[in-house]
């Protein structure tokens, strides 16, 4: 029997992480994400799993990467300032190809900003925050059931593609209590790496597009893992040909599997004249606004991105063949709108509804913007 409960968004994420097999959590207190760590500190020892509160967010992600390399499914949770501190180790996880899930419950920034107010202003930091060319996967649920399903999916994608996955949320989704159906184990996919032995040092040896088993220590053969650029053995290497191959391998494992990684939801788009593009908390207001617009005879629809990185380019492009007006709704001063603009062909009228003052959009505000654009 699935259980229907009223739970805080942060707690749904924590429960989903445990359901996905998360057996190591390292974190540092920060508003508005702390409930995730608190819940883990209570539940994980009961399940013979590991929780530790580290001395800062850099240490938290470091511990997660270490534990992941020792075979655990790991997660950390934070918000803006902590996410900024984690950027160096996100790069380390990309470089060494280590699965780890990082929850960022977004709050007002920059700097200390507004710890108790929501924002969606870390969208570009999520994509490009760590230095160097790198692939990243980022998921952003909006509704209660998605808080569960996308968390499970974050673990699956991290394990499948040996890459850090950022699970985005925001202060409203994190703190709000919502009516949620927690599905039974077995009704959703949980990806488990097949048990394997390491038999030689060729841990990164593969052709572009291939997904060998994840790199793990203590698998019967001592290996080397490095944050320096490396060859197929993991040895440091600056050889131009080797580096070029490794850079492309890391990018292609993500970009050749977009069908598996990208997920989005479409509401009332088949005959829509106005496409609203949104995600996270703003998508909730946008969906209410789209429904209201329909009641008033305005043909609006919603494209809700669940996978925000890689950007759901192809699916959105397809919609622009018919719909020639787009409204991007996001709680920042313009970040994902540039991605929408890059996808929208000439001839599509592009508008935005942007705000970064800590106040979520009301459905009425989105409705007014839809009607303005529909004129």
């Amino acid at each position, binding site marked *: 029997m699935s259980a229907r409960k009223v*739970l805080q968004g942060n707690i749904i994420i924590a429960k989903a992480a445990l359901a996905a097999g998360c057996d*190591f959590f*390292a974190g540092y207190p920060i508003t508005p994400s702390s409930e995730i760590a608190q819940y883990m500190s*209570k*539940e994980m*020892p*009961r399940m*013979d799993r*590991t929780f*530790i509160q*580290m*001395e*800062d967010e*850099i*240490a*938290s*992600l*470091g*511990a*997660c*990467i*270490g*534990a*992941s*390399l*020792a*075979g*655990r499914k*790991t997660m950390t949770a934070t918000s803006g300032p902590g996410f900024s501190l984690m950027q*160096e*180790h996100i790069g*380390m996880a990309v470089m060494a190809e280590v699965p780890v899930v990082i929850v960022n419950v977004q709050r007002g920034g920059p700097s200390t900003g507004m710890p108790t107010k929501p924002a969606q202003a870390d969208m570009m930091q999520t994509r490009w925050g760590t230095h160097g060319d790198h692939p990243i996967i980022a998921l952003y649920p909006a509704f209660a059931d998605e808080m569960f399903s996308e968390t499970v999916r974050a673990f699956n994608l991290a394990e499948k593609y040996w890459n850090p996955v950022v699970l985005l949320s925001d202060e409203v989704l994190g703190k709000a209590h919502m009516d949620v159906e927690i599905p039974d184990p077995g009704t959703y996919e949980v990806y488990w790496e097949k048990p394997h032995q390491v038999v030689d040092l060729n841990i990164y040896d593969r052709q572009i597009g291939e997904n060998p088993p994840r790199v793990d*220590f*203590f*698998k*019967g*053969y*001592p*290996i*080397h*893992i*490095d*944050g*320096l650029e490396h060859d197929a053995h993991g*040895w*440091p290497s600056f050889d131009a040909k080797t580096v070029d191959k490794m850079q492309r391998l890391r990018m292609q494992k993500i970009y050749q599997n977009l069908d598996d990684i990208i997920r989005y939801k479409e509401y009332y788009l088949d005959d829509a004249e106005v496409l609203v593009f949104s995600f996270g908390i703003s998508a909730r207001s946008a969906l209410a606004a789209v429904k209201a617009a329909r009641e008033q005879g305005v043909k609006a629809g919603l494209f809700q991105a669940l996978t925000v990185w890689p950007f759901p380019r192809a699916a959105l492009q397809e919609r622009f063949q018919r719909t020639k007006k787009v409204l991007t709704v996001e709680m920042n001063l313009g970040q994902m709108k540039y991605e929408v603009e890059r996808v929208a062909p000439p001839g599509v009228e592009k508008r935005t509804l942007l705000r970064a003052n800590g106040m979520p959009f009301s459905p009425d505000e989105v409705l007014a913007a839809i009607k303005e654009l529909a004129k």
Partner: protein
Amino acid sequence: MRDYEKYIRYRTFPTPWCPGCGDGVILKLIAMAFAELNLDPDDIIVVAGIGCSGRMPTYFNTNTLHTTHGRALTFATGIKLARPEKLVVVISGDGDATAIGGNHLIHAARRNIGIKMILINNGIYGMTGGQVSPLTPPTFFTETTPYGNIEPHFNVRTLLTAAEASFVARETVNRLMQLKQVIKKSFQHKGFSVVEVMSNCHVNLGRRNKMKSPLVMTKYIRDITMNMADFEKLSPAEQAPKYPLGVFVEKTERLEYTDLYYNHIVPVAQGSGARGEK
């Protein structure tokens, strides 16, 4: 092949270290300590941060991890928690451990997590070309203290003692047998251990301070170090420029962190069911 050689990954040689560097000595002594304890290479993991010392793991034929600057202890903490039965060794330099990684150092000590740290103190940022570190002695000239160092240096012994570390020792690259014994002893210790090894960077520290040959520099290390018994006879003023050697702290009564977590917290959580979920 000698018994310690199975812990050396010859295929990755040569090392990046300058001729006469103490790092090679330390590499061999650590391998010899592994051999004396007769450990399976797959039961060992050597983790390091950035710097000349950071390159050392590459040359051990054990599990090895080269991480970010100053953060090796954080990765090691995750590994030790995930696999408490493994020997987790961290190699660090003085800049790596006490500047950028200072926070992690005191917290690992406070937790008493069973990580074995070898802190190679050559008093300088060597790999980046010779900038002042928190362990560079006062008045020394470096690339970023061209008029002399005006900052006092950390004292690793007192710093870690204050942070409640359960094993603190100091040795030098001059005293090979003592150093190997102390390293081996630290590996057998249950909690967090730090062995500070006074080493020579004649290239980037010595050269700018009239000690450009390894012999002159190792003689300098010999002159500023002494046994603890002799050190204690000195007045505070005489003690200031000197470095005592030996095992300063060895507390066995304190429980190790993973032991506390898995053998005390987990049973409590499973037994009590104290605070039910909402």
